[in-house]
C-alpha cells in the first residue's frame, strides 16, 4: 500500500517537474521571439508619411527645408528619422541629378524601420524627374 503511494507521489513529482520545465522553455522561447508590433506601427507611420509627401506634391518641389518641416511636424517627437530623396533624369538610362538628405537624428534603437517610395515629377506635361524617397524611422 505504502509502496504504491510512494510510486504515485514520485510520478506526480515527475509530472510537476516536467510541467515547470516545459513552461520555462515555452516562456523563454516566446521571449526570444521578437514582438513585431512596434515595427508594424513604425512601418505604417513611415508609409503614410511618404504617401502624404507624394500626394501633397512636396516630393516634386524638391525643397529639403520644406520636406524637413513637414516630416518633423507630422511624426511624433519621440520618433527619430532619416530621409534621402534621389532625383533622376532619363536619357537612355537613369542619371542621378539631385539628392536631398535630411534627418532628425538620435541614437538608433532595436526597432528601426525602412520604407521606400518611387515617384515622378512633371514639367510641361511630361516627366521631369524619376524619384526615390527612402525613409528610415525609429523610436528614441
Amino acid at each position, binding site marked *: 500500500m505504502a509502496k*504504491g503511494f510512494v*510510486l*504515485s507521489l514520485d*510520478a506526480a513529482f*515527475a*509530472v510537476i517537474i*516536467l*510541467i515547470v520545465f*516545459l*513552461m520555462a522553455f*515555452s516562456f523563454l*522561447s*516566446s521571449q526570444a*521571439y521578437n*514582438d*513585431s*508590433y512596434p*515595427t*508594424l506601427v513604425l*512601418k*505604417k507611420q513611415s*508609409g503614410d508619411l*511618404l*504617401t502624404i509627401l*507624394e*500626394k501633397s506634391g512636396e516630393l516634386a518641389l524638391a525643397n529639403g527645408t520644406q520636406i524637413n518641416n513637414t516630416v518633423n511636424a507630422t511624426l511624433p517627437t519621440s520618433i527619430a528619422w532619416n530621409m534621402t530623396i534621389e532625383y*533622376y533624369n*532619363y536619357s537612355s538610362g*537613369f542619371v542621378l541629378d539631385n539628392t536631398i538628405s535630411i534627418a532628425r537624428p538620435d541614437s538608433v534603437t532595436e526597432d528601426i524601420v*525602412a*520604407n*521606400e*517610395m*518611387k*515617384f*515622378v515629377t*512633371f514639367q510641361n*506635361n*511630361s*516627366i521631369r524627374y*524619376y524619384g526615390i524617397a527612402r525613409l528610415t524611422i525609429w523610436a528614441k
Partner: protein
Amino acid sequence: MGKVKKGLTTLSVLLLASAILYLIYSFSMYSNSLKEVNNDIVDFDNTNLCFDSVSYGVKSIMAQGAMNISISGNNISFKKNTSLSTQYAQDILSFNQFISGGCSYGNASMDTTELGRPRAYIMPQNIEVDNFPGRVTFTPQNSTASAGQVMGYSILIRIDAATPTINWTGISILTPSDPHAMYINIGVQGNDGGRSNSTYISKEAFSEVKLLTASNQTLATFQFNSSAQLKAYYATDMVIETIVILNESAHVETRANIINASVSEGITKKGKVMLSES
C-alpha cells in the same frame, strides 16, 4: 496483479505527461503564430505601398499626357491634348523601366501594352473610352443598357489656328422628348473667335459633324452611331474636351489588372488604376 497495477500507473503517468506536453506545445505555437500576424501585416503594407505608388504614377502620367479626367455631378470630362501623345508613350515606357528595379522589399510591373493605348472605363455604366492614335472613341459596352444612361455629349475644342466652321454632313435630328434622343453640343475656340452648335440627335442612327478650315480641309470629324457611340477623329494638334452627360453618377477606371506588385514572401496584389472617383 501488482505488476499490472504498476504498469497501468506508469502508462497513465506517461499519457498525462504527453497530453500536457502537447497542450503546452500547441499553446506555444498559437502564441507565436499570433506574433507572426504583425509580420504578415507589414508585408501586406509593403505590397500596398508599392502598388499605390505605381498606381499614382500611372494616374499622373495619364492625366498629363493621355487624358485628364474630372467629374462634376453626372458629367464626366475627358480632356486630351493631342500633341502630347508621343511624349505620353515615352513616359509610360521609361516609368515602367524605373519601377522594374523594384520597390521597397518587392517587385512591381505594369502592362505597358495596355497603357500604351490607354483605355478607360466609365463604371458602372461600362462605357469604354479608347485612346487610339488619331482618334478617341466612347462606346457603351452593353448596347442599349449602358447607352440608355448616356444623355449626351458636349465637345469643346481649342485649336491654335483660324476658327474652323462646324458642318453637319449627316444628321438624324430628334425632339428632346424622344426616348432615343441625346443632346449634342459642339464648341470650338480658334485664334479669331469661337463657334458653337447644339442639337438633339438619335442615339440609334448615324450622324456626322466636321470641323472645316476656310479651304475645306477637315481638322476633326465626330461620328455618332448606334448605340450612343462617339468617335472623334483629329488630324492636327488640338485640345479636345469631351464631356459625357449621364443620368447617374459614375467613376472611371482602367482595364483590370494592369499593375502587379509583390513582396518576396509571395504576397501579390494585382489591379487596375482608379482614374477618377465620383
